[in-house]
């Protein structure tokens, strides 16, 4: 049963792809069936009548017509969450601590990317007459720069604020992380305001990222997807596959797993634990930086506090999936993104406007609590007893 290294490596690339497909399909189907069932049940009640009055279509038609777009939006959001969640999970898996400053690392990535692109625009490198292809190149450069700076920052933060605390009670690095988070928020704000006078930045419009690709038409409704959503998805997939490969099929990955499992023993085996932890933060920070640039691309406006909510959601996603587990982060992200979009779109319909989109976070957290009651280790987590 000896598999060659080559097959193993290919498997490590294919496996997450397959999982991703399965998760996306499964959560789409389950949630779709759920709302269709609800629509069927409430078709002939006051709720159905209310929808007909407001939108001029039957409840079932309303549900079905909007469903494909909801799925598409949910999936995109899910991939954004997953991309951020990977960084959390990576650090948690090795150090077992919630890196609160990850959302600021994410913001740093976003700022570096956007600032670069603004500079490119000022020099006439993007937008206007430039070719479409070059837009993609410049975006890639901005993305890489964001990753580089964010990764470096993450390593620095670990060196300065976390390493001296290793071995302290669990809560101590948590507070230190909160301190780092405050510090970085205001540091970004300081730098941005001194250089530009304002501390929010707007992603420049260039290339064809805002265009929409029509996918198919259903009952007169065209379902389409924005190019930038597609970019976000593709990038998230590459990130996951790359990370999975790195952790499971390389020597560094093996060392990371060893350190995660048992730090003293790993160190006895000749692994430089400090270097591996730095490495983990580098990888986590790089992923966070990439997620930041992608986020700015998708949602246009960023400020130093931009990381807070996505960070919170991504962390929820990581826990939902089973924290410390890479595939779990992806699953958690997709499920959370889907749930939120479904709740945001359909909630006000099924409650006749009493509880609308404002309840989507409550809904998401409610689901999280439910899941954890029945599966305390998260959807994909192994049932290991707490180490500390």
């Amino acid at each position: 049963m000896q598999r060659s290294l080559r097959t193993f490596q290919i498997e490590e690339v294919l496996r997450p792809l397959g999982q991703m497909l399965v998760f996306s399909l499964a959560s789409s189907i389950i949630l779709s069936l759920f709302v269709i069932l609800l629509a069927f049940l409430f078709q002939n009640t006051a709720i159905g009548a209310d929808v007909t009055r407001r939108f001029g279509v039957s409840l079932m038609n309303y549900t079905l017509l909007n469903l494909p777009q909801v799925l598409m939006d949910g999936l995109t959001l899910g991939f954004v969450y997953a991309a951020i969640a990977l960084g959390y999970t990576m650090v948690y898996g090795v150090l077992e601590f919630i890196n609160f400053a990850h959302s600021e690392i994410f913001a740093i990535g976003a700022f570096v990317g956007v600032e670069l692109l603004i500079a490119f625009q000022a020099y006439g490198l993007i937008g206007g007459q430039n070719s479409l292809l070059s837009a993609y190149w410049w975006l890639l450069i901005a993305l890489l720069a964001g990753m580089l700076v964010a990764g470096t920052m993450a390593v620095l933060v670990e060196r300065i604020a976390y390493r001296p605390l290793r071995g302290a009670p669990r809560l101590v690095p948590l507070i230190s992380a909160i301190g780092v988070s405050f510090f970085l928020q205001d540091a970004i704000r300081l730098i941005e305001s001194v250089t530009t006078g304002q501390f929010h930045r707007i992603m420049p419009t260039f290339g064809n990222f805002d265009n929409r690709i029509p996918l198919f038409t259903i009952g007169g409704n065209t379902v389409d997807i924005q190019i930038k959503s597609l970019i976000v998805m593709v990038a998230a997939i590459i990130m996951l596959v790359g990370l999975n490969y790195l952790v499971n099929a390389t020597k560094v990955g093996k060392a990371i797993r060893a350190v995660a499992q048992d730090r003293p023993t790993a160190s006895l085996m000749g692994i430089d634990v400090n270097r591996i932890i730095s490495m983990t933060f580098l990888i986590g920070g790089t992923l966070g930086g990439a997620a930041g640039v992608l986020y700015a691309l998708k949602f246009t406006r960023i400020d130093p506090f931009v990381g807070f909510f996505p960070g919170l959601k991504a962390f929820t996603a990581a826990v939902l999936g089973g924290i410390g587990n890479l595939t779990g982060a992806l699953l958690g992200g997709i499920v959370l993104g889907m749930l939120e979009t479904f709740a945001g779109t359909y909630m006000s319909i099924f409650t006749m406007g009493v509880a609308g989109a404002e309840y989507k976070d409550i809904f998401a957290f409610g689901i999280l609590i439910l899941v954890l009651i029945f599966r305390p280790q998260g959807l994909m987590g192994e049932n290991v007893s707490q180490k500390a």
Partner: protein
Amino acid sequence: MSRISLSNLLQMAQQGRWPYILTLAHVLLGALLVYISPRSNIAFLLLISSLGTLYVLKTDNRFKIVLGLFIALVVMPIVGVRNIFYLEIIFQISVFVALALGLNIVVGFAGLLNLGYVAFYAVGAYLWAFFGSQQYYVLPFAPGTQPTDLPFLLPGDAFYLFLLLAIIVAAITGILLGLPVLRLRGDYLAIVTLGFGEVIRQLANNLDKPLNFTNGPQGITPIQRPTLPQFAVDAFNKVFQDIVGRPVETATLYNVMFYLLALIVILVIIIVTIRLEDSKIGRAWTAIREDETAAVAMGVPLVRLKLTAFAVGASFAGVMGALMAASRTFVSPESFSFMQSIGVLSMVILGGVGSIPGVILGAATVTILNLQVLQGLSLYLSQLRQSDAVIPIINFAWRDLSTQLDPAKYQRLLFGIILIIMMIFRPAGIIPAQRRQRELASETSDDK
């Protein structure tokens, strides 16, 4: 070198009559300075820190109690009505001490990380806000559209009853949160409690339709206060008017009343916490915190004890919430954000997890830092910018400082740095718990 002389000095301060003389000197100096310059932050800090001296130096317990009561009941009200800002600081310190002590029971004693603690505070605040205002009659109106001449549901004096009710309701909320999360440990618990905190805040923000319970983001106002009888005002003025220097109006005296109420609540809470720590329950909590499996094996009733921890912790926050709502006459969801929970947690950890004096000191430090020191520092710097002052040596005029470098804007940056530095140099907190000190020594050795 310096260690020897310093420790010698400290030793001397603990011998013979020295503790009495030093304590009295500190208190008197502080009181005198505050009296002479009623707006000086440093004088006030000196006065406040005299409580620390009183606690640290070895004196007779009766002496401590009498002097403590004298400061609390005589010095503070006088100082406070001369400058209500001080009273506000003490009041907020009391509020946060109560919150921190409550969170300390959950996090420090029972070892259950709670990131949504402020939810219980919100429950207490909204409880009195709903029943102590016109909100009951606003139920059918969208926020802001109600007529202005609605009656109040209950008289203001019902507040005292609701202080008790807030304890009970918050405790029940604590149990409700505790029940589903009993099986969770560590960070899973943290994230669920975080979610719970957000859910409560968003409910407060969203429950303005279909029935308008919370008035949404607009917040509920006015909320009634318990009445302050005229004879109390007269009595206060009779006794203190000469020292204060002018008669005190009812509005100002309300600050004193809430300060005293907060003081009473705090005293009760501290006594309860101390009694709990050394009781059977307290030891069982420690057992759970240290090793859940072993604790269960030893026959500790896990479910009941965890729920007790949640309930007790929550009730402290609930009672302070009700007090806060009455003192402000206003509540809105903005007071119950995630940052607030994090703030309380940082007080607990900064002061020393599990250590009662530590947590009190932590709450006081963070509150003073936030309201007084950082604010005062930034005011001072912005005053410098408006003056002709020049930094000597490098010959830099303050007014040339970039407008973007305005110090008033970067308080949080300073707070962040302070948190990091504190954690690096004193990971167990300012006053570590005695149990924790022993633990730290062992934990570093079997670090995995």
